[in-house]
């Protein structure tokens, strides 16, 4: 039975389940660096997932779906930004409001546009293409794990590197981190921390929009109510676990994706999956605890 769970397909599934987390987390860690705790990612992903399907269905093109999802993410990121940065509302209140808003809006639109309840699938929704690399065809297990995935799986890896370079090798990334760590200092060198916060918030919306589109056009080809299913919170967990570093967060998302995939497979052979699903949340609290304890110890010295 263990053989049915622990095999190459598990690793292949890990890559699949981790990707929405990676995409959302890349956005979330930008806001985190800019000093904003964004718990509205859950809703942002959901909105992206819906508009991805909407765009793909109406324009008969997956690319249109992704673009519409990015646009919707941008808008919701703008709303998040206006309220948290301009109007100085509590971040987590706006985050919760966005989650509830997204849940209501997507179901409302699902019913008023498509006239269905619960889920919408149609042959007219064009899915994102899978990519086939002939080079790794002959490489045995590497082929099984890494080949023939949906296109955004590969793009997400490239984006990890892009975000890393952006954050640590460009002035914009430097300023963005400054906006979170020392906004006053940033102001004295003539860069507006507010502007950097806005950029992070908009980018977060776009990334979550892509994560959603990948979910509804790549991972699956349909939209269901509440299909983000906690991924926004697991992405937040990955950001904290990875200390907001893109590479480490990528690793954390892969790890959490692994436990998710493991849970799904355990369920397939009749073993409770709930405990493996809990791991990201408990691991996050554990990491926060270790970090906090380290800080206190240092203070003690």
């Amino acid at each position: 039975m263990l053989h049915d769970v622990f095999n190459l397909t598990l690793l292949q599934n890990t890559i699949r389940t981790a990707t929405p987390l990676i995409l959302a987390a890349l956005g979330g860690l930008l806001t985190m660096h800019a000093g904003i705790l964004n718990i509205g990612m859950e809703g942002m992903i959901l909105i992206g997932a819906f508009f991805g399907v909407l765009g793909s269905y109406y324009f008969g093109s997956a690319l249109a779906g992704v673009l519409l999802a990015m646009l919707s993410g941008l808008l919701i990121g703008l709303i998040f930004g206006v309220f948290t940065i301009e109007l100085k509302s509590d971040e987590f209140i706006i985050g919760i409001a966005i989650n509830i808003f997204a849940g209501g809006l997507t179901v409302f639109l699902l019913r008023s546009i498509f006239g269905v309840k619960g889920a919408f699938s149609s042959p007219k929704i064009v899915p994102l293409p899978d990519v086939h690399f002939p080079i790794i065809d002959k490489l045995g297990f590497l082929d099984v794990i890494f080949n023939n995935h949906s296109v955004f799986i590969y793009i997400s890896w490239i984006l990890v590197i892009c975000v890393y370079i952006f954050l640590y090798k460009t002035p914009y990334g430097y300023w963005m981190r400054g906006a979170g760590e020392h906004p006053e200092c940033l102001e004295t060198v003539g860069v507006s921390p507010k502007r950097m916060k806005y950029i992070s918030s908009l980018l977060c919306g776009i990334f979550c929009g892509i994560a959603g589109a990948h979910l509804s056009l790549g991972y699956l080809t349909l939209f269901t109510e509440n299909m983000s299913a906690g991924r926004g919170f697991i992405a937040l967990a990955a950001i904290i676990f990875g200390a907001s570093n893109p590479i480490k967060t990528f690793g954390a998302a892969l790890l959490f994706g692994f436990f998710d995939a493991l849970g799904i497979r355990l369920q397939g052979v009749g073993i409770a999956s709930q405990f493996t699903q809990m791991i990201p949340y408990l691991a996050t609290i554990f990491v926060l605890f270790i970090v906090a304890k380290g800080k206190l110890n240092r203070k003690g010295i």
Partner: protein
Amino acid sequence: MFKKAKDNVEYLISLFLSIFAALLIGALIMLLNGQNPIVGYKALVLGAFGSKYKIATTFAKTVPLILTGLATAISFMSGIFNIGGEGQLYLGAFAAAYIGFTFTNLPVFIAIILAIIASALIGGLYAYFPAVLRVKYEIDEVITTIMLNSVAILFTNYLVNYPFQAAQGKMGGTDMIAEAFKFPKLVKLSKLNTSIFYTAIIAIIIYYLIKKTPFGYNFRIVGENGVFAKYAGINTKRYMILAMVISGALCGIAGAFEVYGVHYRFLQNISKGYAFDGMLVALIVKNNPVGIILMSIFFAMLKTGSNSMEVATGIPSELILVIQSIIILFIAGENGFKKLFKEYRLKRGKLVK
């Protein structure tokens, strides 16, 4: 003193403007769908209050809102943010159900008291951990309580699907609680039951605690100005933990009432985000206990009436979720809006001169 009264008036104006603006946006959406908003809103109000049964349904929905709303208020006013109400509610509901289907031979009164105590204890305990992590290790309780929500929901999900699955098999629920323990219904066929009386008693106790005892004063001082509270000799850490535990206990009790008054068993999806709704209620009225009750009735009205609105206009009932979240957005942005408005007036004043 006068400043406070002026603040309150300003706040009430913002509140009504927010609700009005949100309803206006709702009306606009109805118009865009080719429907008459007056017909829609009339159906909504009649759907919530048009008959004895409808009124009962509306008020039944206030129970979890009021309890989780008060829970939010106590924690938020003390400056510690319990976002984990949903998890505490699930655990409390399970604990209460466990007593109800295990100790079926207990006298009714004792069983119910036990169930409420158990749910409060487990809810409080589950809130105690993040509170300690916050005051002792400065770990952001917003993050930990969010994470703990998922953990509790997954854990109870495991319990009802494995060790405690119902006798008739996996159905995402436990066995029924003993027949005698069920809270009597107040109106036939509706979900309104005696838990609303218990909720009223709890609300009065919490009101008294917040407004009339040194406890409530200390909670607010701790929340508003931790440094001042420290110099005034208040043990801020203890008050923050206490506020969090009371908050968790209330959410646990909300779960117990769902089991004993509505479902008669624990279900794996027993709450559809009640704690988050309750949080919105408390946030909108700025943690005022009386406001929480009134706003809970308003939210419950929107929820109950939305189905009738859907029947009358064909507009999906989820429109009210959109309206609710717009209200909270406006209220959350209240101070910012006011500032912008004042700046705008100043600017215009200068131009005129």
